[in-house]
């Protein structure tokens, strides 16, 4: 079963919706560059599990893979995260402003009916 996303941000949020993947991303961000083997040791999980998570993160454009000989190195791709950050901040501001306006509307409506 493969989930098809029409929008890259959908893929980003799917990837980030998993706590294990967020921890892996945070570790790559902290170390700046990691191999899959290093992540296996750090998180004490199997190689296939790490590979599956890395593949999801890579497809979502959150990490970039560099191959050097037999080693695969992973770096954070900031662009994908920034896109998600913009979505969150815009909608947070949208709702905060609107819910403030909802409060004013409810108060005004009450005054008018008194």
């Amino acid at each position, binding site marked *: *079963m*493969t*989930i098809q*996303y*029409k*929008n890259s*941000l*959908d*893929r*980003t*949020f*799917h*990837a*980030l*919706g*998993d706590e294990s993947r*967020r921890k892996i*991303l*945070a570790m790559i*961000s*902290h170390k700046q560059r990691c191999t899959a083997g290093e992540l296996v040791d750090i998180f004490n999980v199997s190689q296939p599990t790490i590979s599956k998570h890395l593949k999801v993160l890579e497809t979502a454009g959150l990490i970039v893979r560099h191959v050097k000989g037999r080693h695969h190195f992973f770096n*954070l791709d*900031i662009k994908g*995260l*920034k896109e*998600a*950050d*913009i*979505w*969150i901040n*815009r*909608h*947070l*501001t*949208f*709702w*905060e*402003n*609107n*819910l403030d*306006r*909802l*409060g*004013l*509307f*409810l108060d005004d*409506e*009450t005054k008018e009916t008194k």
Partner: protein
Amino acid sequence: MTAIINKIEPIVINRFYEHPPEKVFAAFSCKKAFEQWIAPSDNIDTRVLLHDFRINGLYRIEFSIPEIGKSFLGGEFIHIDCPRQICFTWLWEEPYIHAGVNSLVTVDFIELNGSTKLSLTHEMKACLHSNQLNDILSAGKVL
């Protein structure tokens, strides 16, 4: 950058209104009332073009932003429990920057001594897929 990673969670906002849940709920369910406040600021002219408030009913909103132009937003009411909860999908239309990104808004109205605690959650639908994926993986099924 770690801060951004950690805050990728649904948006959750809580507000207290000194009005009963029925009244706060009506500000969502009544088209005329909804149009009065569903705008981020006074200078954004807002028109609710469609507001079919029933399960599987659709809504569509037009925002006219000065010097930028019009943006359209729409979705479907997927759960209505008057006056306790409303759940609707949220989708911006082209050419808005976030067009095509599926998300879900859930609004809970909790009665507190005649007042209302409103709790709004806005999450990417993809996050729900992720949870479903985990359920499948933990059950040992092959994807």
